[in-house]
């Protein structure tokens, strides 16, 4: 039944712990086919949340990592020359719309605005995707949903969603989980004890106090999990935190010195 979408179907339930009421909100938005925008800091679980919801709703998930070289043709599709001649190949957006999947544009603000406007006809009552080069007006499959994500924290003026794009979406704000929940997530995903996870989360929390003071963002949950995985694989705690958290966070000498001192104090 899936045909071209078979490889995009998740076979195992992705682990996810709800931070607030984002799960029922997403389900309600899907029931209304309301396109969704997920906003939150890097590494807080936006992508994992989408994967979890795709599995829960029984839908294939097509993910597109947006970047500034992404073109409308990359999203929609193009004619390609193969052994059989010139043939149309659906892009990932068209695949999702044609056969009924969640299409997830990750870090949508990284794409140019003249690229992202191609999604407009899919996000209003038309639910259509014009394939001009194919002379086709594709009506979106009833199961199709468009989801985008971005980190509102450190966008430049050049990387903002147009108002005409932004207002087509409902938005769910995600954030790092509160401490007790983050400890659970880190212990589970990192393969470490809750006691060690608690120490790692406490250290991450101290780095988050530096947001806007030397750091654009403190350590993400993803970074903490990566540190935990290193520890689970035999790396010493301090070394794991240096590799997974401290070193990637900043190149500024003073900020790095402060982070190293905080790590030494915490471990």
């Amino acid at each position, binding site marked *: 039944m899936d045909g071209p979408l078979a490889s995009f179907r998740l076979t195992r339930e992705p682990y996810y712990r709800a931070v607030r009421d984002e799960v029922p909100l997403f389900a309600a938005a899907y029931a209304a086919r309301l396109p969704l925008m997920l906003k939150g800091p890097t590494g807080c679980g936006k992508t994992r949340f989408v994967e979890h919801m795709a599995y829960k709703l029984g839908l294939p998930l097509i993910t597109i990592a947006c970047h500034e070289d992404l073109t409308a043709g990359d999203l929609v599709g193009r004619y390609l020359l193969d052994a059989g001649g010139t043939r149309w190949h659906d892009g990932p957006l068209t695949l999702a719309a044609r056969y009924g999947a969640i299409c997830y544009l990750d870090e949508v603000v990284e794409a140019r605005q003249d690229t992202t406007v191609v999604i407009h006809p899919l996000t209003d009552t038309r639910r259509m995707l014009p394939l001009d080069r194919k002379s086709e007006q594709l009506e979106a499959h009833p199961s199709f949903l468009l989801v985008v994500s971005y980190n509102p924290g450190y966008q430049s003026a050049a990387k903002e969603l147009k108002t005409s794009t932004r207002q087509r979406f409902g938005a769910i704000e995600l954030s790092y989980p509160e401490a007790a929940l983050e400890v659970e997530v880190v212990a589970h995903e990192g393969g470490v004890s809750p006691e060690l996870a608690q120490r790692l989360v*406490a250290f991450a929390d101290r780095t988050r106090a530096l947001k806007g003071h030397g750091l654009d963002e403190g350590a993400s949950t993803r970074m903490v999990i990566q540190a935990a995985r290193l520890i689970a694989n035999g790396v010493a705690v301090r070394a794991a935190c240096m590799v997974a958290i401290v070193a990637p966070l900043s190149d500024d000498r003073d900020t790095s010195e402060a982070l190293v001192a905080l790590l030494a104090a915490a471990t």
Partner: protein
Amino acid sequence: MIVEFKQVERPLALFVRGLLGHGVPLHCATEGETRAFANEHGWFFPVRYAMYGDQLGRDVYYAAAAHLAAHHRFGGARMKRGSLRAIQYVLVSLFEDARVEHALMQELPGLRALFARFHVAHESDHASFPSLCARI
């Protein structure tokens, strides 16, 4: 090489913010001041710690900041001397220093190694009140 406060001021301020979750104004004390202290205007640090140099000269500022943070987190209002004799006041202050540092070390066990570098007592020290305090 002797380290001066202005060389560590910025990372030290970030360190304090990470310890407490908020910033505290840090200042350079007047020349001649040998100990860090806190008042309503913020925290004051010596221009330099003349007995320490190189990395130790930087670490002593972090130890001093951590000590002030311990008082900030776990200390109460500044104790009045009242009718305490000088030696009693010194000992009570010493015990309070140890108490708040111990409390902060429960959250930040790595501070033990940092503090230990500067809480130094030797068996060969002459029997005196200062050496008793150092050993305590």
